[in-house]
């Protein structure tokens, strides 16, 4: 039982890593990025290509892939999301949905249907573990993932609250017009935020590819898990995302313990339970009082999107 709990928490670390970029993009840019999973898989393919073709270790490969992801984020915001956001709140969602389809199929065309993994390129790390007292083993990679999740979310939180650029990004998220009046270039702040989000997506892609296998259509499930973690933790709260990831990981691990096929069901059940609890305990009064708030709307949209 203790083993199940520990493994569940560590799995939650992975979910927090993949949910981080989604949650960041939603909280500071009000964009629900449905291409999130596909972009993570694209980063994974980038690392795999560097490793298998050029023999570059995935960790060194990150030095190339992460700046590339940042550039992709910047360009996406400037040329796609910024334009579609002018057409209303719904359009960016449709845009990223379309983008996900394009990315998935481009990867399929390029790399075929074979499943790939970075596990062969990271030596013994993919299966090494530490033994805890009581005969419990924890995977080194899983512990690393959890540490990364904490560092990533903590780092982002610190950046947003303590640094001038972080404050500029938050100000732009709240009121781009007034942000301009205090001297912030709102377009630049948003493009920077998108670049940061894509860097976290790149990191998520690396862990996805190191801990398991992936294929061109792996993005969908990753998006789903990221969504569940982000919504359970309270969409838009960065520390909440860590908690959400852990709750999801625990629910899946416990579900698997109950029944061999309980893994996914356990996660979905907890996700739906949290969602309805929030809708009835928190959501409804808000809807009743002042109509749909922006976040209320987005939560419901998020819920619809991520319900399997």
């Amino acid at each position, binding site marked *: 039982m203790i083993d199940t709990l520990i493994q569940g928490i560590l799995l939650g670390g992975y979910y927090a890593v993949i949910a981080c970029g989604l949650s960041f993009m939603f909280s500071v840019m009000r964009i629900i990025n449905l291409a999130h999973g596909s972009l993570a898989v694209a980063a994974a393919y980038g690392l795999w290509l560097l490793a298998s073709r050029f023999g570059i270790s995935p960790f060194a490969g990150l030095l190339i892939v992460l700046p590339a992801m940042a550039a992709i984020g910047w360009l996406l915001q400037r040329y796609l999301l910024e334009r579609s956001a002018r057409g209303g709140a719904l359009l960016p969602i449709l845009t990223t949905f379309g983008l996900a389809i394009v990315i998935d199929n481009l990867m399929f065309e390029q790399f075929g249907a074979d499943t790939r993994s970075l596990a062969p390129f990271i030596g013994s790390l993919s299966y090494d573990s530490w033994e805890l007292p009581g005969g419990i083993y924890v995977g080194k990679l899983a512990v690393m993932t959890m540490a990364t999740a904490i560092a990533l979310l903590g780092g982002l939180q610190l950046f947003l609250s303590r640094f001038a650029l972080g404050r*500029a990004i938050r*100000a732009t998220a*709240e009121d781009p017009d007034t942000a301009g*009046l*205090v*001297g*912030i270039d709102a377009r630049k702040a948003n493009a920077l935020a998108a670049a940061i989000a894509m860097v976290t997506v790149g990191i998520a892609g690396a862990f996805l590819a190191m801990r398991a296998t992936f294929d061109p259509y792996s993005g969908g499930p990753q998006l789903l898990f990221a969504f569940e973690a982000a919504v359970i933790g309270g969409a838009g709260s960065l520390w909440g995302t860590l908690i959400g990831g852990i709750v999801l990981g625990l629910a899946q691990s416990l579900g698997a313990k109950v029944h061999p096929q309980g893994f996914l069901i356990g996660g979905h059940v907890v996700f739906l339970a949290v969602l309805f609890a929030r809708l009835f305990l928190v959501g409804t009064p808000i809807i009743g009082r002042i109509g749909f708030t922006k976040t209320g709307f987005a939560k419901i949209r998020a819920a619809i999107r991520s319900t399997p």
Partner: protein
Amino acid sequence: MTILSVQNLDVRHGLLQAVRDVSFDLAKGDVLALVGANGAGKTTLLRSLAGAHLPAAGRILLNDQELTLVPSHRRIAMGIALVPEGRRLFSQMTVEENLLLGKTSGRPGDWTIDRVFSAFPNLVPRRHAKTGHLSGGEQQATAIGRALMSNPDILLLDEVSLGLSPLVVDRVYAQLQSLLTSGTTIILVEQDLGRAMGVASRVICMLEGRVVLDSPVKNITRDQVTKAYFGLHRANTGRAAS
């Protein structure tokens, strides 16, 4: 010495022309009161001076430098800061964070957080409070402080008394007094004519987007401004009045 020159400015909201052919020059140290009924185009004029709303025609010059199409985030770096109507604070952020955002442009000058707090002592205990939780007077002080943090040459104040009780308005103006006499160039929009004429050195009255009266305060009576405000001067003098 002319610091700001507005020439034949037209500003539109889609089909609605809010500002029509407005021209005036502002000398350094002037305190200009912009008066006029609701919808006369005062706020739109201020917003276009701050760059939040680009004009359809005309020119804006700052120290003989063309400013007309410069976006708002660069204008503040050139020395024009707007305290927007309705204060428009970042409500999820603290007083201190809002003030720090005012420094984004990095203009050199003597305004610091501590100086803002000494100018607006009512903010001191609220330093780490979210601005969404402040009273109206505290919010207005924060908004003015945020604009001052950019060390502006020209400060645009849009209806600082909007939604505040008369007592609080007195307080805000008392706190502004040192600023008004310090030689900073100020354009202020104010509904209270007595107050506006009390602090300003010059008054411009707008009506339906046009300037219908432009005069030093000392050469004009409250009655004359009121007439221009309601457009009553037209019956006698036609459209011309300046």
